[in-house]
């Protein structure tokens, strides 16, 4: 079983739709949860992060963490064609004094159509 599972998609939605992207994980020590967005032939860029459980909102994006279910979600409201990209979830355990090594999901490819 992979430590982080993510549906690769592709997920195709019409413009204006609400998009739900999800990851499940098995390591209960993960405390930091991130979503990266990666456009085609570009490097990933950090979109959102949350610490432990709860919700975090930033504009059209909401990140949700449910540690009891080991499940994280990213919601995109009013999706735009410019949101078409691959979305990678990433997770990390707390690590003082050394680099936090991120464990990535495989990424979900999202296409928002006009």
């Amino acid at each position: 079983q992979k430590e982080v599972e993510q549906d690769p998609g592709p997920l195709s939605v019409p413009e204006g739709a609400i998009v739900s992207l999800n990851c499940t994980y098995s390591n209960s020590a993960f405390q930091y949860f991130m979503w990266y967005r990666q456009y085609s032939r570009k490097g990933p860029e950090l979109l959102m992060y949350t610490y432990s459980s709860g919700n975090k909102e930033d504009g059209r994006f909401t990140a949700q963490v449910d540690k009891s279910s080991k499940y994280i979600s990213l919601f995109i409201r009013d999706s735009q064609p410019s949101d078409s990209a691959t979305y990678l979830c990433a997770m990390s355990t707390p690590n003082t004094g050394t680099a936090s090594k991120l464990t990535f999901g495989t990424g979900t490819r999202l296409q928002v159509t006009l």
Partner: protein
Amino acid sequence: NAGVTQTPKFRILKIGQSMTLQCTQDMNHNYMYWYRQDPGMGLKLIYYSVGAGITDKGEVPNGYNVSRSTTEDFPLRLELAAPSQTSVYFCASSFHRGAGSYEQYFGPGTRLTVT
């Protein structure tokens, strides 16, 4: 700030050749990382460094070497290239924040093909 820069953008190597992938960051980050990304496999950590002169292995270090002589530069060396090293390579950097250094900034990648 240019952020994280990588050279070259593309490279084709023959089996057995060697090359160095260059990575430079201008954000004064103390942590730097090398990842490879294969289709459907996500990002895998090759090596990382917590500061100049200190490096450590990640998940998939075999066939690679790194060095970190300055804060800014973190080159990745491939010796005796093999077809299994065909991949997209990303360099990243982050600033240590006490309890974690989760906010990693990525370069644009180097697309390597070994034939």
